[in-house]
């Protein structure tokens, strides 16, 4: 391939070649010429100008009408040139924004980071993958001195940066509640008031909060409109939906949340997720909840962390590696 030179001489040569031979190669080179021109911020009217000059050199006796019409075209192209310049500057701005968002996304990860605790007798696996740069999903583990484990999983409805920012608010208000108010219903009631006061009306948050006490093996939980998880009863070898009724956070300031209990025995499992898992979209349909459970079942024999990662990989493949929604999955197995 000949190197394309960005000058009048070269353009004249190409034009001439094409006028005489109608050779496709010249057309291709003209395309290269344009691409190179764009890289050098050469405006469309400049190209028209080069064309006029080249034309006059090849045809010194160019009829005046053609000459005039070319000048007319030149004028007409000027606003295209301006629009193109604007496009360029927007493109630069977009790159800047993108890098700012990635700074924000890193910041979010730092703010929301949670340590997967080790609790006697529990095998815990957790994964959360954002569909875009910033996530609207969130999970958090709290372990106190008594080895009690608090688990929060939440999903902000209303995507993008504002949603992600409001998650940080949730985390910090949760951290500020006194230990005495750590039961699930109280936590949701408090958070609900925080969200109701501080978040845009079309934005709301679904959240599930569970509290496991290894001394009693009791798992207490409440849900604020969150996608139901699953409970595996090892003795009966049966998966059930963890049913818990409750209004999403941020809709009404006096919402009361009911608290439920489950006794967790050896071999039992608790599976928590967000609707990014259950609303996984295939080419022409949505995956059903039963299918989701079937996929999860395939991997629950693995250690918990490996299991959540395998389930994620499975759904990622299923969706052609294009997540439509943030994906969060937690599996807790009681192995003693």
């Amino acid at each position, binding site marked *: 391939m000949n190197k394309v030179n960005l000058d009048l001489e070269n353009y004249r040569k190409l034009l001439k070649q094409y006028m005489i031979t109608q050779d496709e190669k010249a057309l291709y080179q003209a395309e290269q010429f344009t691409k190179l021109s764009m890289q050098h911020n050469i405006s469309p009217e400049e190209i028209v100008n080069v064309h006029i000059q080249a034309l006059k050199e090849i045809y010194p006796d160019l009829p005046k009408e053609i000459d005039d019409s070319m000048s007319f075209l030149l004028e007409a192209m000027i606003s295209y040139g301006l629009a193109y310049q604007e496009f360029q500057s927007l493109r630069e701005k977009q790159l800047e924004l993108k890098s700012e968002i990635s700074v924000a996304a890193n910041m979010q990860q730092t703010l929301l980071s949670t340590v997967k605790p080790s609790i006697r007798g529990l095998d815990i696996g957790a994964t959360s993958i954002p569909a875009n740069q910033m996530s609207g999903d969130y999970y958090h583990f709290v372990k106190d001195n008594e080895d009690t484990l608090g688990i929060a999983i939440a999903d902000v409805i209303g995507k993008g940066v504002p949603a992600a920012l409001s998650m940080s608010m949730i985390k910090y208000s949760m951290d500020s509640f006194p230990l005495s108010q750590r039961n699930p219903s109280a936590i949701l009631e408090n958070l609900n008031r925080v969200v109701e006061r501080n978040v845009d009306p079309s934005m709301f948050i679904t959240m599930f909060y569970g509290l496991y006490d290894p001394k009693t093996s009791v798992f207490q939980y409440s849900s604020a409109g969150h996608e139901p998880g699953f409970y595996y009863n090892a003795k009966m070898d049966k998966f059930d939906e963890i049913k818990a009724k409750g209004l*999403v956070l941020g809709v009404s300031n006096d919402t009361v949340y009911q608290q439920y209990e489950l006794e967790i025995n050896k071999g039992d499992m608790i599976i928590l997720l967000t609707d990014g898992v259950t609303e996984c979209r295939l080419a022409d349909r949505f995956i059903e909840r039963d299918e989701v459970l079937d996929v999860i079942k395939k991997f629950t024999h693995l250690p918990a962390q490996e299991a959540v990662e395998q389930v994620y990989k499975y759904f990622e493949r299923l969706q052609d590696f294009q997540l439509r929604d943030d994906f969060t999955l937690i599996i807790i197995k009681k192995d003693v």
Partner: protein
Amino acid sequence: MKMNLEVEVVENGSTTNVLLAGEIDAYTVPKLKEALLPLTERQNQLIEVNLEQVNYMDSTGLGVFISALKSTKQYKSELKLIRLQDKVKRLFEITGLDSIITIDSTVRGGNV
């Protein structure tokens, strides 16, 4: 393949019927919001939204209905959702919104 949402508004005295058809998701939600919210700003108006032809809705759709509900409280109008398909209804049930939004899946008739 991207599905669309069709919104048809029929004024009927003190009742406004809103017929929706298609999918309600992040892409179509602005259209729904634009059509629905102004209707809730008229006092004593009953806005009856027919969701029979809506075969998919995600959580961003719920956001619009919550905004609409809040708006009806402010302007003293009323919002009612009718003829929901099971999957859409489930979303309102999980999120507990069925306890604060009037939902009637059994209604038959009306000028569809």
